[in-house]
């Protein structure tokens, strides 16, 4: 038959009809459906032997004990260690996802290592030369080198102090709010007055705080309804920035003085303040926790008379004697003269206290200072540094974690590496030590031995949860145990002398400032350190937290700033400006900007800063 169009059509039609009778189409739909189960782009989880490893979380200074479930050696989920004397099995959101940190997008893995080393060595040499009056020293008098440590009390901190000790006028700097030498014992407290401290929102060791929570009455004096305020037994809604005045008022009440001024300044009734004072003395033991903007309120504990009970000296694990000779003293950054630092080394690898960059910049020499940052992400101080050296992150690092503020007894535990660090990262303390010409490669072991030598305290091993007196442990076993995730805990704690405070000062109303009419309150105590990509579940994929650089305003405040919900605006403080997104929220008190911490925001505004919001 000749191939006409009709025949062709017939053939196609017949073929189509026939195909349906073959298995082809049916197999095709099954297989494509199966293919859709594992089509390209869907990762396959690694299979392997399941094991449990222990470590301590070094994401924040709390250092909670961690049980890691590993598959083929790779940690796939983290949880707290139940019954741990310090962290009580607790682990916060950041800790739970800590094992993601090595894979954060934009992580730094390379940097100008040699150059930086040279710079530090030269700067040290210069300082020594200048101090020795050698002619031709590049370093002018009064200009020096310093290390800024955001998490003091670590072995690394001691290494820095020793390194700076080798340099004439070398500085070891901390954020150093006054009386940082205190630790508290929540288990003894029956009444806790928090002057804006985020007691239930990441302060101290979350697990420990929440475990003790049932035993004390929590009074939160705060302007905004923070997480702590909403869960406190009593929430005193004071005027923003009037916490220290309230502390003063309580002191006066205790001394039977007049509280009229304080009442007027804080917006509370006089009776409230006197009752508060009475409660602190009667339903003791009491504890007063100062907030960010009233550190001097520590002294109030002295008046309440609980020093040595709820407040003790900040304990520190023993160190080898020879470390103490010729090591630089601990100097609060605020206490040194402006424009006095030529070369500044910032260790951001262990985030802790945060200092707004503006405050740091003031201490540097005006003409091209040298800033060297140890960081794992470009988001923090790295944005302002001349050299940024990549560091390992938890859980790659081997570092120790000092006792947190809510631990009355000294502790020593290690964040042990669960995964290998990438090539090209540096170990900050060893790096600085090397540049300064001392050897600190073995510092952790030395300190562990020193602790073991004292024979004090107990060693808590997580695998069996048993506490063994150190006296019965050989140094090698001690070290091995620490590296398997274990914790040394001292037995006794030291009394602390209350700091001096002047209780006769006049009741200051929160300083008015026409140009900066608003008060900034940091909504989230999120660390500036990089966090797991999953964290967006808390601010972007839900409204649990305020998203980075979003600021909540009361409708009135927003109106007066001409800002609308979701609108872009600029936040301005004495230290500078940064862009924010406005969230209108009737639950924020008027006159307050509740702003979420983000690198840009905390550059210019420490909590409680005066500020203004200008809509764009």
């Amino acid at each position, binding site marked *: 038959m000749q191939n006409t169009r009709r025949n062709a059509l017939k053939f196609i039609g017949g073929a189509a009809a026939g195909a349906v009778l073959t298995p082809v189409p049916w197999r095709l*739909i099954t297989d*494509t*459906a199966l*293919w*859709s189960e594992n089509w390209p782009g869907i990762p396959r989880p690694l299979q392997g032997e399941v094991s449990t490893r222990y470590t301590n979380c070094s994401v924040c200074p709390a250092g909670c004990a961690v049980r890691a479930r590993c598959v083929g050696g790779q940690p796939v989920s983290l949880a707290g260690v139940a019954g741990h004397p310090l962290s009580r099995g607790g682990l916060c959101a950041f800790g739970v996802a800590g094992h993601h940190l090595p894979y954060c997008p934009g992580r730094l893995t390379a940097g100008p290592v040699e150059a930086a080393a040279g710079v530090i060595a030269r700067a040290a040499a210069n300082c020594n030369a200048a101090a020795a009056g050698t002619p031709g020293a590049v370093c002018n008098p009064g200009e020096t080198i310093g290390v800024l440590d955001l998490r003091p009390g670590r072995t690394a901190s001691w290494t820095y102090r020793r390194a700076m000790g080798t340099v004439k006028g070398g500085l070891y700097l901390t954020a150093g709010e006054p009386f940082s030498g205190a630790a508290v014992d929540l288990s003894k407290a029956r009444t806790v007055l928090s002057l804006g401290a985020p007691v239930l929102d990441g302060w101290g060791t979350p697990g420990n705080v929440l475990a003790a929570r049932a035993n004390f009455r929590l009074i939160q004096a705060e302007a905004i309804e923070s997480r702590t305020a909403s869960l406190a037994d009593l929430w005193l809604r004071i005027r923003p920035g009037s916490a220290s005045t309230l502390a003063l008022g309580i002191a006066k009440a205790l001394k039977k003085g007049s509280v009229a001024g304080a009442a007027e300044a804080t917006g509370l009734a006089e009776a409230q303040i006197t009752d508060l004072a009475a409660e602190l003395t009667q339903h003791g033991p009491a504890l007063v926790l100062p907030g960010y903007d009233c550190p001097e309120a520590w002294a109030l504990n002295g008046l309440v008379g609980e020093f040595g009970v709820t407040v003790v000296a900040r304990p520190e694990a023993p160190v080898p004697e020879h470390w103490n000779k010729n090591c630089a003293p601990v100097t609060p950054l605020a206490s040194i003269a402006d424009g006095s630092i030529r070369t500044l080394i910032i260790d951001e690898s262990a985030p802790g206290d945060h200092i707004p960059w503006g405050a740091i910049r003031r201490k540097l020499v005006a003409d091209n200072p040298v800033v060297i940052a140890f960081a794992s992400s470009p988001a923090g101080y790295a944005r302002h540094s001349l050299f940024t050296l990549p560091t390992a992150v938890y859980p790659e690092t081997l570092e120790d974690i000092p006792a947190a503020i809510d631990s009355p007894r000294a502790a020593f535990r290690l964040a042990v590496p669960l995964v290998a660090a990438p090539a090209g990262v540096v170990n900050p303390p060893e790096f600085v030590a090397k540049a300064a010409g001392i050897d600190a490669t073995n510092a952790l072991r030395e300190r562990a031995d020193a602790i073991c030598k004292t024979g004090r305290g107990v060693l808590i091993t997580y695998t069996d949860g048993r506490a063994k007196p150190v006296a019965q442990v050989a140094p090698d076993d001690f070290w091995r145990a620490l590296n398997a995730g274990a914790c040394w805990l001292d037995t006794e704690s030291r009394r602390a002398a209350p700091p001096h405070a002047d209780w006769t000062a006049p009741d200051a109303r929160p300083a008015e400032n026409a140009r900066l009419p608003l008060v900034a309150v940091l909504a989230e105590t999120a660390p500036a350190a990089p966090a797991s990509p999953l964290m967006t579940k808390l601010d972007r994929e839900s409204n649990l937290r305020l998203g980075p650089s979003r600021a909540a305003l009361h409708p009135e405040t927003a109106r007066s700033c001409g800002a609308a919900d979701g609108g872009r605006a600029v936040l301005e403080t004495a230290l500078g400006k940064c862009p924010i997104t406005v969230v209108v929220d009737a639950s924020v008190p008027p006159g307050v900007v509740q702003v979420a911490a983000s690198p840009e925001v905390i550059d210019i505004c420490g909590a409680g800063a005066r500020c203004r919001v200008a809509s764009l």
Partner: protein
Amino acid sequence: MDRRFIPAGVSRCSTAKFLLWLAPWAAMLAFGLYSAGLCLVKGLNQTHMNNRFAFGLWIFLDLTVIALGAGAFFTGFLLYILKRKELRAVVNSAVVIGLMCYGGAMAVLGVDVGQPLRAWFTFWYPNVHSMLTEVTFCISCYLGVLAIEYVPIVLKNRKLRQVPHFLVFEHELHKLVYVFAGVGTFLSFFHQGSLGGLYGVLRGRPFAFREELGIWPTTFFLFILSAAAVGPSFILLTTWLVQKIARKPLVRPQVLRSLGRISGLLLAAYVLLKAADTVVWLRRTTPRSGFLPAQYYAWKPFGVWILFAEMALFLVPMVILLLPKLRARAGWLVSAAAMACCGVAVNRFVLTIQTLALPTLSFDRFLDYLPSWQETGTFLAVLAAAVLVYSLSFRYFGLFPEERELRREPALASESEPVLAGK
């Protein structure tokens, strides 16, 4: 030049003019296919639907067009089962419209699901409790029926008639047309109903949840009725539109009137039952599930007005279509039909969109939703495809048997002149 394809005895515009008419619709179709493609390739993040607004424009579209497409089965039912001979004039057109409505709905559903490759699971592992299973089965079967019913229309084409086999085939098919009409009616009754059940069973959405009669919620029956009522109106509307666009009479005016009258009668029944249902729902069903009727309408912009608007859009056309005087005037007739169609659209809108917009938990937000251009594009594709297929069918398959007579005897047309130009 396509003269030899055009049915004998009717006049059609020139090819050029026809292509000119097709061009914009073709363009719209192309755009629509592009946006649908985006949704298939990149995933449904191309739409503005979200976890709370799980259904959007597309489901609303499906429910509406299927309600309007009901004209197909109902006209067939009236003609072949109830022997309303005068409807033979529009039955072909009704079939084409039905085919396009259902085809469009199915196509959009294919884009709407996240894993189209697994769509057939519903047939392989059906969950008998689910209304959606019922819908899927009935609609796909009925789509087949419509396709078969469409074949004889295609075979009416002058060229194809020259093939003897086709003639025989068509003849045989014609004998079976009653069967198909019956099957179609049965299937349609079911899926129109299950489409209503789709939301009526949502115990978790008290705004849509309805008491059950037998195993079906009341919306099951209300949807059947409203679809049956509005179907004829839509046929009426489209036929009138085609007459306007083609600028020639295609059916006797009384055909349109009788369509209107049927629509009117059914609307009356619907309005009655709907009112009763609404009362039961507000007074009994809602309080039982712990909600307050007031809450439903507390959220702007969906105030109580929407409830009354919906009722009015059924009530007014009902009155018009039931009054012979008004029905006799094309203007009233057509606008009444149009109103009824809007009424059913609003009804489907309320049940789909408003249901999802309303909060269920006491701390929920009221949600607003605007379709993305990709969603709208897909919607337009269905419209364009429908117009294209209808135009082609109209030009080549002679959808209106009476067109020839009306052309031969202008008397009929002129008699019907005042009606057709009655505004």
